């Protein structure tokens, strides 16, 4: 136990600097070779180095987490700050599945889940994660075994089925935060009371699992850090309103990792201060995320992880930049509702009122606001085969956005991580034709 703890701490303290110096060395080498940076993108963000280091350390440290500290596997919309004061190391299977998606490992991992009878029509994140557990394979070296599975239904009901399958397979307790869907602008009082009651139940379960007690000050501090982090992430995104936008929303898909996985920690917030300052500096200097920004686009739904680079290049080459996405924005919305003076009550409200847990008029409102605030002249709605809550309604949203704002909107059918559901040729053809319409 003590040894594990030492390893766990050392992993963070030692590996970070090692990775940083390795990265610096690689850069020097590249510079010496003098390879010119061509392509349609602006100069790379310096912060990316720090991002890679932060996430690599997080995953590397994770290898030593079990046995050292309590480990929780959590959904991306889970109020993780409630677990922070108890010293939990949080692992995000969705983030892990996205890494598998980027590395195109999904077909192989999904096959392992399909062989056990999980249908290919199920969410590809769930198939990837279950497949990774079944096959014992992961691109991050090793995922620590959880002591607790923590699942919040505010992003979908799928996570409940997925985590139950994990709970059964791993023999680990599952704690559920059920956030009933909000029809209308604000959740009814009895609904919020229910979520709040569950958070109190969650604290008790987490205390039992971790063998520690929650100090009210620590809980308030975690809520404060989460609020600050959420607001900082919002500031980073908001800098994309400038013309040219200092980065691409596709960069945002990668830079969102800390706000998802490390929310409620000082490391997360320190990172976003760094990123914000760099973006603000780029705005001052007029440096864009792409070299020649002629059109600005909104992206809706999850990224297509396995084709993110190809697609953003396809767009950037023609002067199109994605300046905002409803997806990355989702982690910037909650800040205003979080209140360190009432950590549980405010978390209940913040985590219930999220984009996927609210009705379509609210969703349309968010898209409309983003398109206006970021001066988007077009939108791509990714119709994501794996994510029904995000995709249902997009046919209507497309019509309404186009009619109300007079912008071009494309519905693009793909999948967030399974390349077998993506027809590259047809997809790229459609995107090119869409861009030609802007001439």
């Amino acid at each position, binding site marked *: 136990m003590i040894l594990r703890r030492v390893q766990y701490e050392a992993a963070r303290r030692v590996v970070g600097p090692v990775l940083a110096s390795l990265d610096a060395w690689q850069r020097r080498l590249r510079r010496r070779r003098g390879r010119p940076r061509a392509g349609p993108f602006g100069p790379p963000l310096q912060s990316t180095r720090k991002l890679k280091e932060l996430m690599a350390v997080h995953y590397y440290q994770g290898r030593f987490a079990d046995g050292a500290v309590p480990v929780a596997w959590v959904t991306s919309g889970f109020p993780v700050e409630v677990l922070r004061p108890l010293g939990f190391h949080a692992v995000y299977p969705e983030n892990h599945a996205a890494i598998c998606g980027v590395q195109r490992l999904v*077909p192989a991992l999904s*096959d392992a889940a*399909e062989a056990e009878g999980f249908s*290919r029509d199920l969410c590809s994140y769930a198939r990837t994660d279950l497949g990774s557990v079944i096959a014992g394979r992961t691109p991050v070296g090793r995922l620590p075994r959880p002591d607790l599975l923590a699942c919040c239904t505010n992003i979908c009901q799928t996570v409940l089925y997925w985590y139950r399958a994990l709970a059964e397979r791993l023999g680990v307790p599952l704690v559920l935060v059920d956030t009933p869907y909000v029809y209308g602008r604000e959740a009814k009082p009895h609904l919020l009371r229910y979520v709040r009651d569950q958070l109190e139940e969650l604290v008790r379960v987490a205390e039992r699992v971790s063998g520690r007690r929650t100090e009210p000050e620590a809980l308030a501090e975690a809520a404060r850090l989460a609020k600050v982090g959420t607001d900082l992430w919002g500031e980073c995104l908001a800098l994309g309103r400038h013309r040219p936008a200092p980065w691409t929303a596709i960069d945002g898909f990668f830079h969102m990792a800390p706000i998802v996985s490390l929310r409620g920690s000082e490391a997360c917030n320190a990172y976003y201060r760094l990123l914000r300052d760099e973006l603000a500096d780029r705005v001052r200097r007029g440096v864009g995320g792409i070299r020649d920004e002629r059109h600005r686009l909104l992206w809706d739904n999850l990224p297509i992880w396995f084709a993110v680079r190809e697609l953003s290049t396809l767009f950037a080459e023609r002067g199109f930049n994605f300046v905002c996405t409803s997806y990355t924005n989702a982690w910037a919305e909650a800040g205003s509702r979080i209140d360190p003076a009432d950590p549980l009550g405010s978390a209940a409200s913040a985590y219930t009122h999220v984009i996927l847990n609210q009705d379509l008029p609210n969703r349309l409102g968010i898209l409309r606001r983003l398109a206006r605030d970021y001066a988007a002249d077009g939108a791509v709605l990714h119709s994501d085969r794996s994510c029904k809550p995000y995709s249902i309604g997009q046919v209507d949203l497309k019509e309404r956005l186009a009619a109300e704002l007079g912008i071009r909107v494309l519905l693009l059918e793909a999948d967030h991580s399974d*390349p*077998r559901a*993506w*027809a*590259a*040729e047809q997809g790229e053809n459609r995107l090119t034709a869409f861009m030609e319409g802007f001439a």
Partner: protein
Amino acid sequence: MTPAAIGVDVGSTTCKAVAIDADGRILARAVEPLDPRIEPQVERLVAAVGGGAGPEVPLGATGYGRKRVKAGRAVTEITCHARGAYARTGRPGVLVDMGGQDTKVIRVGAAGEVLDFAMNDKCAAGTGRFLEVILGRLRVPFDEVGALAGGAAKAVTVSSTCTVFAESEVISLVAGGAPPDGIVKGLHQALASRVAALARAVASGAPEMFLSGGVALNAAMGAALRDALARPVRVVPEPQLVGALGAALCVLR
């Protein structure tokens, strides 16, 4: 010699008939592309293999058109393929039957009975039809497929197994200058991975694997399946006739 039983397999692309003796040995066989007028075609093929045998010879019918064979007893392809393959190999195991419109994976027990089975879902991905469409696109005749894929230095990755998607993917690969033999090999790999996923759902443990159906005549498919499953896959002798043989065996007294 008067046969002891006759079996017909009215499939989605071909119609097959066999006549067998009392020991289950094949006496005569016939294969024709499917005719839309099923009844006269079945009569003709039965007459051809039956050598003038009368209605006293029992007739088993299988395949999608099995209920159109009036004089015969209808048994599903799944049961028939299991019986037929078991008769030809004498061993239990897992049989992959790849026909025109569907692919079946059948777990065959120690007496030739069906223990479990799985079939592809209703799209044509993973079937003979899928191969036919795309090979047609590439203008590769069916009997040259094995040699072409076998000679390929390296497979070109075809990620899509949806017939429509894969067809356009192949067109773009051709346009991009990828070698046809590599594409054909890649196509078989994509197909095999789809079938292997189906097979894994049925083939727990490490049973022997067999391949039957019209697609099995194509040597490249067996090779790709061997690679995808990482174990030997034996092609059942006369793979196209396995269903008809099983139908005859099912009615053999």
